[in-house]
């Protein structure tokens, strides 16, 4: 006999409460099966979900949530009991929906009440309460339930009245009510009939009985019948029942009979039945003499009786001795309330004793609650309603988190809209400008330099130049105006704040801030720039800052600054704080014990609405500024823990400052544009280059302002100030110089340097040299102990293309330069002494700092991956550490990179792409498994593996890609505190900015890298994305490509993986690809590879 079903339900059928609407078998089985484990997370999660839905429900039918919650509870906890908490849920629901008049006619609401009634001590009270409150009085169910309850208690008349009331009020559905009424009447009449029959049965002997004593009283005393003798002396009235017939001989007197009659239970049913004789009260004034009692002694003189001593009945003995026994007292008499507990109470949590106090009727509680709410005098200063909305208590943090999540969602939505709008606007303006420029060009062909800059038709990224040069020329930009207009508008909305901080989330990651506006001397524009910059802050920082999430609610801070909790606008505050202390007078004002108005002015920052919700709607304020305010602390902490790149808005709004401050400010702001102009003027023919080049300078200019600000500040440490400024000035020329070489590297590098200066070495960019130096200082033993590690005394050999140099004891000749910048260089070299036999050689990575980071990462990979460390990585590498740099030598490297393939082949066959992607996913998965983020995945960093280059390679063993460069890698085990993906080179690309704008997950960076590489291989150009319904999509039309299903799926998953663990994701995708590897695929792949080798590899090699 096969038993498909788990018979759990049958085994514990006694533990399942029947439900009126039945149960879902699957839920029931599940619930019963889970019974054993005390914590079933799924159930808890669901419960939590309901609880939070109750609090944050925004629809117009809160009853629905409760209804579902209760139904779910009923189904999920078949045993009912404490765990289900159903009575509590019902009570809370009833309370919560108390004043909702609109639900009074809702059957669900009535149902809620009726279910609640079952938990009450006296449901009848509840029904009449409902009736008096007009809750559900139009619904048949109320009357039916009410009447049923009455019927069950035997009050048929009342039940009938209830039915009639219902019918009279035309309760819906009337036919149901009527049919119930009919059935009820049928039941009652049947019962009455039965009762009548019974009563009739009883009456007959009754009459007989009454007749008999009467007759027998005059008859002789001889009993009739053999066994039963009827008492002859009975003269009781006709109410007498004929029970005496059953009496035994020994007890023939009527006294017993009358006794039994006196305690007859009043039976309403028989009373209401017609024709039943009503009991008459006992006619005798005094009880009849107890004559015929057995063992009775006739009264006599006490002393006359002679009794044996032993009888112990005599009155003599009674008063004498004290009882010589201890009276037995029942144990339970003293402590009835507590059940004796044999097991130690700490262990025994199941059978805990019931609390002795009497339980309050829940109905009463609800009614009390209602009264309370009506005459409530105290005001709750926190969102009590939210904390206690459901059955479980929510913490303020939970509520805040929920609100935050909601807001973030809304924000993204708005942002996307704003971006789209802005983009459109920009496009329009660019077109306009272009037209204008063309016109200008025609008019004045040979002109000064700014005009030349214009010639290059600027795409989106280049608008800065266009704008800046335009401003230079004194032209009013409509865009600028609108920008400042925007800030002014926002200002109007919050007159309390004197700062121009705009938190409106219309951030445009596409344009690298309002750097454009910095060179403008117009204050308005300046503010505009600041506004847009600070906007950027907001977008970048809050998700990363733990303080924002879980800041402790601080009453004093809220009171001090109107509606501002210190946790909210920290980004701004912290940024401003040091600046605000420019003048000593300002400084005083800035102190917390200053009058609150002044504080408001200074800290007037728009509060995050979440706090308005948590705290704000309760307007009462204590105007007592607390000198121990934690605000300062929070700010300081924030300042210390916030990476610099986010804190860029540090301009001081003019109104708050004296002229001297302004003067101070002016040269700074002027010097910035000067700096900025230089790269622009110096031959900027490459647009992309230009766009990126501006960025570091911009950051430098920020620094300017900042350092000058702090130099005046008396509070901040002077030493740090000087340090900052020196470093700053040292770096500026360097940056300018760098700006002319490769841009992508530069941006991040200079950013890193800037970070070092300001970040107080708490949080730094991942690839910051300083930090790496620190991490590798002293050099880990694993590093120095490695046989491949060589410490060299001299300085780094000069390496130039086609020149020989010595490394270790070998001489190499550089054959190719992959990429180079100020700090990193990647070369391909062959041994100088040996003729070259194949395409393989050495990849040499040179780093201008003596930090063997790549080597470290490679070793870590080797260690963490163990057997997984395969051909995808550099298996044979050596590290040469010099005084002023280090070189890492990778042996057995194929000459070509994936970038060569992409550039060299017009169309890469799908098989090759699949193979490459497969390996790509594999490599990244391994990296992530080892908790290493590569950070700069691009086709250039992937050397081709033997799988592609070696036609005789073993399919299984070899890998198609090899990765040796880890310049931007992040070891999350070591650098766990860094979680900002924004600093990676990829985050500077347009798509990176979009995709990583809000990401806080460093692994995400590599996913974007993968997506870009795949995109490059498929379409030949960089990734372009847009967002639709919160999902990122690529702008390219996929349908034309082969296997578009898979690719769109891949993009969909990779681009939208934020927050999820990347390793399983990559593995899944990889496994999906491996599903495509059939024999036919292999064949085609072989052909494709051969073709690739012929057309590209060999050719290039020769």
């Amino acid at each position, binding site marked *: *006999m096969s038993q498909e*079903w788990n018979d759990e339900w049958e085994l514990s059928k006694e533990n399942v409460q*029947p439900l*009126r*609407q039945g149960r*879902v*078998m699957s839920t029931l089985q599940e619930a019963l099966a889970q019974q054993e484990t005390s914590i079933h997370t799924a159930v808890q999660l669901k419960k939590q979900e309901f609880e939070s839905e109750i609090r944050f429900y925004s629809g117009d039918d809160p009853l629905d949530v409760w*209804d579902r919650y209760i139904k*779910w509870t009923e189904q999920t906890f*078949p045993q009912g009991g404490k765990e289900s908490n159903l009575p509590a849920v019902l009570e809370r629901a009833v309370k919560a929906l108390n004043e909702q008049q609109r639900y009074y006619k809702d059957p669900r609401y009535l149902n809620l009440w009726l279910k609640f009634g079952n938990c009450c001590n006296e449901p009848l009270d509840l029904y009449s309460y409902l009736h008096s409150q007009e809750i559900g009085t139009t619904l048949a169910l109320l009357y039916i339930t009410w009447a049923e309850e009455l019927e069950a208690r035997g009050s048929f008349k009342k039940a009938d009245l209830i039915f009639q009331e219902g019918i009279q009020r035309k309760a819906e559905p009337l036919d149901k009510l009527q049919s119930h009424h009919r059935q009820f009447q049928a039941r009652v009449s049947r019962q009455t009939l039965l009762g009548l029959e019974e009563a009739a049965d009883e009456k007959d002997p009754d009459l007989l009985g009454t007749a008999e004593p009467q007759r027998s009283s005059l008859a002789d005393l001889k009993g009739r019948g053999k066994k039963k003798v009827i008492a002859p002396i009975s003269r009781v009235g006709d109410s007498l029942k004929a029970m005496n017939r059953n009496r035994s001989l020994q007890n023939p007197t009527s006294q017993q009979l009358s006794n039994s009659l006196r305690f007859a239970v009043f039976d309403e049913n028989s009373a209401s039945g017609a024709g039943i004789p009503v009991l008459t009260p006992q006619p005798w004034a005094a009880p009849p003499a107890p004559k015929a009692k057995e063992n009775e002694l006739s009264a006599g003189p006490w002393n006359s009786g002679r009794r044996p001593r032993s009888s112990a009945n005599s009155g003599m003995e009674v008063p004498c001795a004290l009882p010589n026994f201890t009276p037995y007292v029942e144990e339970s008499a003293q402590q009835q309330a507590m059940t004796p507990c044999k097991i130690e109470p700490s262990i025994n949590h199941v059978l805990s004793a019931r609390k002795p106090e009497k339980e309050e009727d829940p109905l009463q509680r609800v009614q009390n609650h209602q009264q309370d709410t009506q005459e409530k005098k105290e005001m709750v200063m926190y969102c009590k309603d939210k904390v206690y909305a459901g059955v479980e208590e929510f913490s303020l943090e939970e509520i805040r988190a929920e609100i935050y999540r909601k807001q973030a969602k809304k924000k993204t939505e708005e942002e996307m809209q704003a971006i789209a709008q802005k983009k459109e606007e920009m496009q329009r303006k660019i077109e306009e400008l272009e037209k204008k420029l063309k016109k200008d060009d025609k008019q004045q062909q040979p002109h000064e330099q700014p005009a030349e800059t214009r010639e290059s038709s600027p795409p989106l990224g280049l608008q800065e130049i266009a704008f800046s040069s335009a401003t230079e020329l004194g032209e009013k930009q409509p865009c600028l105006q609108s920008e400042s207009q925007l800030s002014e508008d926002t200002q109007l909305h919050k007159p309390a704040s004197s700062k121009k901080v705009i938190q409106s989330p219309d951030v445009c990651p596409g344009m690298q801030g309002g750097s454009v506006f910095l060179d403008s001397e117009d204050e308005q524009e300046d503010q505009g720039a600041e506004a847009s910059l600070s906007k950027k802050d907001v977008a970048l920082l809050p998700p990363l800052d733990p303080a924002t999430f879980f800041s402790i609610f601080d009453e004093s801070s809220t009171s001090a600054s109107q509606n501002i909790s210190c946790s909210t606008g920290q980004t701004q505050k912290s940024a401003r704080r040091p600046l605000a202390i420019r003048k000593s007078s300002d400084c005083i004002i800035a102190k917390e014990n200053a009058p609150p108005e002044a504080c408001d002015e200074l800290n007037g920052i728009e509060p995050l609405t979440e706090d308005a919700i948590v705290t704000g709607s309760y307007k009462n304020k204590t105007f007592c500024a607390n000198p121990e305010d934690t605000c300062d602390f929070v700010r300081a902490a924030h300042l210390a823990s916030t990476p610099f790149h986010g804190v860029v808005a540090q301009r001081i709004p003019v109104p708050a400052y004296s002229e001297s401050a302004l003067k101070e400010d002016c040269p700074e702001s002027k010097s910035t544009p000067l700096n900025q102009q230089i790269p622009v003027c110096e031959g900027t023919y490459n647009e992309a280059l230009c766009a990126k080049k501006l960025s570091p300078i911009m950051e430098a200019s920020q620094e300017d302002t900042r350092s000058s600000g702090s130099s005046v500040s008396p509070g901040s440490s002077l030493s740090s100030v000087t340090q900052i400024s020196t470093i700053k000035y040292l770096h500026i020329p360097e940056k300018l110089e760098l700006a002319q070489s490769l841009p992508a590297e530069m941006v991040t590098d200079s950013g890193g340097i800037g970070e070092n200066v300001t970040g107080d070495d708490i949080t730094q960019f991942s690839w910051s040299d300083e930090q790496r130096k620190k991490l590798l200082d002293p050099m880990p033993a694993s590093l120095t102990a490695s046989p491949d590690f060589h410490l060299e005394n001299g300085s780094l050999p000069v390496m130039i293309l086609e020149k020989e140099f010595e490394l270790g004891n070998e001489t190499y000749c550089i054959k190719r330069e992959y990429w180079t910048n100020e700090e990193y260089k990647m070369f391909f070299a062959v041994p100088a002494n040996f003729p070259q036999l194949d395409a393989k050689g050495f990849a040499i990575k040179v780093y201008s700092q003596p930090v063997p980071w790549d080597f470290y990462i490679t070793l870590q990979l080797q260690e963490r991956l163990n057997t997984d460390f395969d051909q995808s990585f550099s298996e044979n590498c050596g590290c040469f550490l010099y005084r002023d740099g280090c070189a890492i030598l990778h042996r057995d490297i194929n000459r070509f990179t994936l970038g060569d393939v992409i550039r060299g082949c017009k169309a890469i066959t799908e098989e090759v792409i699949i193979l490459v992607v497969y390996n790509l996913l594999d490599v990244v998965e391994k990296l992530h498994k080892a908790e290493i983020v590569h950070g700069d995945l691009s086709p250039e960093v992937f050397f081709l593996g033997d799988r592609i280059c070696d036609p005789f390679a073993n399919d299984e063993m070899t890998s198609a890609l090899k990765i040796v460069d880890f310049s931007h890698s992040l070891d999350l085990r070591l650098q766990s505190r860094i979680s900002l993906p924004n600093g990676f080179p990829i985050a500077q690309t347009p798509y990176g900015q979009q995709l990583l704008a809000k990401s806080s997950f460093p692994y995400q960076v590599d996913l974007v890298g993968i997506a870009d590489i795949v995109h490059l291989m498929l379409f030949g150009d960089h990734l372009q994305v847009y967002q639709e319904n919160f999902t990122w999509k690529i702008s390219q039309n996929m349908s034309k490509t082969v296997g578009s299903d898979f690719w769109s799926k891949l993009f969909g998953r990779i681009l939208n993986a934020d927050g999820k663990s990347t390793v399983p994701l990559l593995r899944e995708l990889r496994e999906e690809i491996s599903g495509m590897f059939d024999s036919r695929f292999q064949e085609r792949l072989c052909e494709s590879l051969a073709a690739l080798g012929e057309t590209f590899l060999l050719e290039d090699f020769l």
Partner: protein
Amino acid sequence: MAKQLGRDQQGITLRGSAEIVAEFFSYGINSILYQRGIYPPETFTRVQKYGLTLLVTTDPELKNYLNNVVEQMKDWLYKCIVQRLVVVISSIENNEVLERWQFDIECDKAAKDESAPREKSQKAIQDEIRSVIRQITATVTFLPLLETACAFDLLIYTDKDLAVPEKWEESGPQFIANSEEVRLRSFTTTIHKVNSMVAYKKDSFS
């Protein structure tokens, strides 16, 4: 008598099997009618069967009706042409089907030609039947309350070529539109196997 003996001692014949199964139906239907309150409980009386106390109707008309059905079933079981017996419980007011008790019968038609009885002790069969009836009783744990007065129908699925006997009529399957189905235990006499299942209305709960 010989047949009787055979059943008691060691084997199951076709006729004996048909009898056992028909008897099960008789008690099973009675149990359902009592458990689901189709007839007032006072019209039932207790009997001992399968080691359980079961309730069977005392209503003469109902008794008669059930006897007729069971006799007919026995005949069909013997001929191995019956596939399914369904007890349909529907509301009197609007004829809506509220519950459907389905007993699928698998007949081993080969038994018709066999002469030797099959090996299975009567006690084992009774134990199986007992657990089915117990489950029928236990279904109150999940079945919805029948709020209105209900009536029941018996549907019997037979092989196609069967001539409809007198007093029987053809009927639709009377399915429940949106139903939750719960499979109950089954029992077998080795010749007939009965799988039980109950379906009930689902839409009223979340």
